[in-house]
């Protein structure tokens, strides 16, 4: 080693780690890199804000395809029709397409984004149909519309005939308006009721043919006459016993009554030797309020003859 090599710089190469070894070093490393990280985050946030603001206002290029996803039944043709509709046609911007999609009652929320390649990405969340109604428009024949738990009615585009047939029909309802503006009185009770039945008690729900709101409008919620009258499909029941043709729920206690339903051995009761009536109705509680002293419920009572 020559004399020049005895200089401290040539003896110690000074290789320093990017992150110092101990706790203090790690704190220092974080502190020294924090401004850079925050600067990058600032730029990213700025970019996102600019992208979103520009993205929503720039027209969609004509002829561009789109990617589409839904959690329901609406077909891609529906989306294509919405995009192409109107005077602007495909020149609509993202915000306008979103508004047009959400204008249909079947669409709960629409997420419309532009991808880097110029195509659109559309994600729809649809309303769940829990029932159907027969509605008479101002002109033309009666039409069947589907009902969501929040009371919105829609045409049910994309629903199969089988699916629509399996939905219970709301009967004896009072309504105002027509088409998408149709408002059903009492839906605030029957909507959650049907949703709960569809979600938690599907086995029973699928047997229901209709729900009558005729006795739903009592003076008070738990007053006599405040009940939901469910008609059960007879065709699905065994022929070697009297059929169950209806179930009567109270508008106030339907949650407890629904919970009670799976525990009632209806099949066993209907096959008992003394079950001699032609058909039976299951009364869960509502009738009890008019009888003193109360009769233990639920009860299977013979269905009134027509």
């Amino acid at each position: 080693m020559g004399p020049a090599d005895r200089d401290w710089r040539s003896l110690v190469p000074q290789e320093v780690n990017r992150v110092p070894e101990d706790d203090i070093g790690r704190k220092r490393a974080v502190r020294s890199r924090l401004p850079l990280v925050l600067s990058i985050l600032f730029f990213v946030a700025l970019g996102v804000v600019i992208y979103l603001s520009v993205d929503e206002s720039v027209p969609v290029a004509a002829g561009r395809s789109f990617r589409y996803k839904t959690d329901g039944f609406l077909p891609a043709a529906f989306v294509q029709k919405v995009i192409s509709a109107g005077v602007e046609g495909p020149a609509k911007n993202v915000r306008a397409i979103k508004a047009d999609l959400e204008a249909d009652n079947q669409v709960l929320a629409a997420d419309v984004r532009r991808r880097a390649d110029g195509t659109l990405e559309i994600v729809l969340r649809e309303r769940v149909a829990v029932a159907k109604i027969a509605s008479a428009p101002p002109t033309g024949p009666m039409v069947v519309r589907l009902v969501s738990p929040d009371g919105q009615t829609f045409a049910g585009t994309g629903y199969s005939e089988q699916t629509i047939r399996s939905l219970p029909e709301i009967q004896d309802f009072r309504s105002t308006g027509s088409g998408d503006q149709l408002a059903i009185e009492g839906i605030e009770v029957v909507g959650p009721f049907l949703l709960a039945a569809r979600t938690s008690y599907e086995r029973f729900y699928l047997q229901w043919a209709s729900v009558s709101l005729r006795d739903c409008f009592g003076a008070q919620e738990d007053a006599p006459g405040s009940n939901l009258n469910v008609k059960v499909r007879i065709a699905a029941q065994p022929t070697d016993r009297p059929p169950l043709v209806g179930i009567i729920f109270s508008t106030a206690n339907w949650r407890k009554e629904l919970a009670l339903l799976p525990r009632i051995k209806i099949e066993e009761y209907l096959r008992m030797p003394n079950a001699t009536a032609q058909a039976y109705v299951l009364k869960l509680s509502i009738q009890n309020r008019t009888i003193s002293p109360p009769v233990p419920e639920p009860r299977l009572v013979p269905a009134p003859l027509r």
Partner: protein
Amino acid sequence: MTPKLLPSLIAVIDIGTHKTVSLVGQMINGKARMLGFSERRTDGVVKGTVIDLERLHRCVHEVVNDVERSSGRSIEQVYLSLSGPAAEGERIKGIHAIPAHDGKVTAKDVTDAIASAKRLEPPAGRATLLYMRQPTTIDGRAVANPVGMAGKRLEVHFWRVTMEEGNMRMRVGMVNGMSIKVRDFILASHAAACATASDSDKQGVLVVDMGAGTTDWILYYKEHILCAGSIPVGGEHMTNDLSVALRISRETAEDLKIRFGSALHREADANQTIWKDGDRGLGDQQFNRGTITQVLSLRYQETFEYVKKDIMQHLEQLFPGHAVKLDQYFLPAGIILTGGSANLADAAEAVHAIMQLPTRIGVPTFENDSLRKPEYAGVVGLMTAAITDSPPPVRRQRGFLASLKDLFRF
């Protein structure tokens, strides 16, 4: 268009026996501007010698962390102070014969002479830390700039500071362990002189930096370093003496030294009685002030006699056969006293009495009032010396991202 240049960050660390100090600054409009300062009690060093590297590393790292937080800047390289007997100095010279065709010195001749000086190998096992320029001579005549002058023999002189290689590796490794590079070493006594002595003082001045564990001295003559040295005696020895003499703890001795101590013993001190706490309550102790000043003044006197002896030994080596005297003709600016022990009462008078030279306490000239104290002459001087001797490269104007990063500094 030439890009605008920005001053670089200058960070210095002064590791002493008693305290470790760090200063971060920038050179703005010709003045050093302080950005951050940090000070902590040193751990792991006794009498200028490292006895526990791990504790010292932690202590220095905490100081670096503090100064980074206070300045809001990340330190990448530092200037380290060199003090204590571990750093030894010697005079070296390089000789170059001027070619005979015109007899004028060229820049290449000077470069060759410097290279010739630096070819001299340091003592075995030691590494060269720095070279400090001494007068250049042509045919024995001292000149400031030899280029263009006529002569036959060009001599360049350096004061070379060396250190035992393992010790040097330990210091550099410790700093590297904090992800920081050592930019350069600066002699602590030279730093103290840079902060307290003017160019006119350097015509002949002795700067003594009396710290807690060591006393470093440096002698300037005709604006150049003549010699420098260090003795392993400092303020802690005085505290220790007082502790033994009065049979009290070191903490109490330190307290008494600061409050009642003096470097000069006067007859009147023997008549003064002082109380440790002052309330004369239970546990309070009574002392004779004369005893305290006598102990301190004796140690002060002894320390400076050692310094004087060390200087004379160096001068004899430099000028063999010449009877060089430390008097006012040789050192017209006298002695400048810096370091924590310069704060002792009557220190300047005591040194004047011992060395028979005009003595003053060196207060560093710095923009920040809190650092205008003799104990900070070292760290302030490190900054000054870093700027004047070995300035870091200026950086080009920073970009938009760097300016944005500044917005997010905490």
